């Protein structure tokens, strides 16, 4: 039990360090290129389809990680305390297993900073809740 608490504390500390590091001035990404980068994600994640093998991304910005009620997340994800924004997403996508240790997303990450910037720019456009017709 003690080691479990310690791990959570350490994880929290690690996550917050990463957030500080990532929240500095971010270059604007290119959403058109980001759409191409997103192909790596699309095997599991849809912008709005709860039947995909990964959780739907609709409305993800500002949401607490692991909080959709139509997806069964790992405990690591639900307890991560992460709230998705450009900075946390950037840190997560750089090395998913390092940022949230033990999460279930089977993806090695997006290595290039510019690819992540473009991807996040695309997602910011694509998954924001939009007004209906």
């Amino acid at each position, binding site marked *: 039990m003690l080691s479990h608490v310690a791990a959570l504390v350490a994880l929290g500390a690690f996550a917050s360090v990463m957030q500080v590091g990532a929240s500095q001035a971010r270059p604007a990404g290119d959403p058109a290129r980001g759409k191409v980068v997103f192909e*790596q994600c699309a095997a*599991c994640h849809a912008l709005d389809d709860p039947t995909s*093998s990964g959780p739907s991304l609709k409305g993800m910005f500002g949401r607490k990680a692991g909080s959709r009620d139509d997806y069964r997340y790992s405990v690591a994800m639900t307890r991560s305390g992460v709230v998705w924004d450009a900075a946390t997403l950037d840190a997560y996508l750089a090395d998913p297993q390092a940022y949230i240790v033990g999460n279930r997303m089977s993806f090695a990450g997006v290595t290039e900073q510019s690819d992540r910037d473009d991807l996040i720019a695309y997602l910011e456009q694509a998954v924001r809740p939009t007004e209906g017709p």
Partner: protein
Amino acid sequence: MATKLKEVDVVIVGLGWTGGILAKELSAAGMTVVALERGEVRNTDPDFSVPLIRDELRFAVRHGLMQNPVRDTLTFRNRASETALPMRRLGSFLPGEGVGGAGVHWNGVTWRWTEIDHAIRSHYEQRYGNSFIPADMSLQDWPVSYQELEPYYDRFERTAGVSGRAGNLRGQIQAGGNVFEGPRDREFPLPPLEPAYAHTLFSDAAAQAGYHPFPRPAANASRAYTNPDGSRLGACAYCGYCERFGCEANAKGSPHITVIPIAMANPNFELRTRAWVTRVLLDSTKKKATGVVYTDVATGEEFEQPASIVALCAYAINNVHLMLLSQIGTPYDSRTQTGEVGRNYCYQPGGGGVTLFFEDKIFNPFMASGAFGSVLDDFHANPMFDRAAVGAIGGATVTVGQSNGRPIGYRPVPAGTPRWGSAWKAATAKWYLRSMNIGVTASNMPNRYNAYDLDPTYRNAFGQPLLRLTYNFTDNDRAIVTFVGQKAAEIGRLLNPTSMTTPGVRGDYSIVPYQSTHNTGGAVMGTSPRDSAVNRYLQSWDVPNVFVVGASAFPHNSAYNPTGPVGALAYWAADAIKNRYLQRPGQLV
């Protein structure tokens, strides 16, 4: 008394690759289709999600995704003079069960069979003379040529997202691909996987020795891919949990992420799981099927599903079993060589390979993928490989794979290492990272005595006779494995290893240790009802509204894995049903 259900156009038995392809194609053509699958629904999430799926004990050792032999199995003997006994635990091969079938837990090796394979008897007769083929080798040509099947191979490769490099584009030989392959109309849909160190060492040495190594064609996506139907595959993460597992990254071409969800979205299609088909029903003429009978394995209730067309798309072994249980066609008798259902069972001899150990090299075997590998086809697809010098028909591929480096199963140690105890432990720790294998996979020619029939003694959970398999390796198989095994060892010596095992020699076939799930034949295709159970469209000669789709149709086994032509023939049969049979029901040939 079975509850009779509403008639449909097509009932499909088994929903793996072949059933999934037929389900998608025939429901899209406007036919009402019901698929009866004996196992459960399986989806990437949650069934193959990490960490659940990385359980080697559950899935690799205890066969978590495979056929349960408690319910149905087969009996086995090496020769007709023996009494066959039931296989109570899976071993030599692992038939699938559940939605997606073995297409969920295959490795992903996706070949087009060679032009020689498609016309094998003609090739050997023309090149070596009629007397070169032994009298007891029931060798016969495919009734479908490579050129006819080429667009269907292409279609399957695009569906499954195959990574590879062409060696022959419209007759132009391409260096770095398989220069012995049949001409392709276009390149693979995806580039090859990134080679591992062992692959580079092997391919450099083989090329220097004058051979033609190339990356093994893999339905393990080298990058994210959207197939022509809009199905999305992720990039392979080289996790090493491929064969015997489902892919958590949707990177392995599998029916449950491609053809099956497309069929499921079609209102013409219905899937019923836990539906164990016990027989195909024939009318009083025995020339027409009226549907199938199945048992709901959850409740024990029996149902009759009437249908205009019955498509047997179960595992190759189960297709033959269902034909024999339903009395479709004439059972084969190896003593008199009469009948055709059960004939030409083939398997795939391995065992000629060598394992190399290096004090000074690190191979990181855990970075692995199912079909990941470097192959040479100089002793198989190569028509200039002189079989007269070997005195045998067929050939073998030589491969350095890197399919898994898992903790329970992958423990290479040099010859002479104790089998247990602290010396064994020390050796596995030392050599885990420092070894590589050069594998030899041989073709398997049919023999009149290698066949299936119904067992006279043992029955399954439904009270039906088990399928009985009589099988052994032949001198032809041993000659090929021995010859090509020596070639593999020669290449191995060029790499100057610290030590190397010697190629094994085959005795009798054993059904206990795992070898490959490449069981072929039993309901073979051909040009005449005298030597085949189905015609070139995989349509039963005897009951023309029954189609029998899968590796059961192969008249012999290549040195290649079967899934490429299994997928291609499924598209080919689906087209024949849509474009020929519907216009003119009845015998298509």
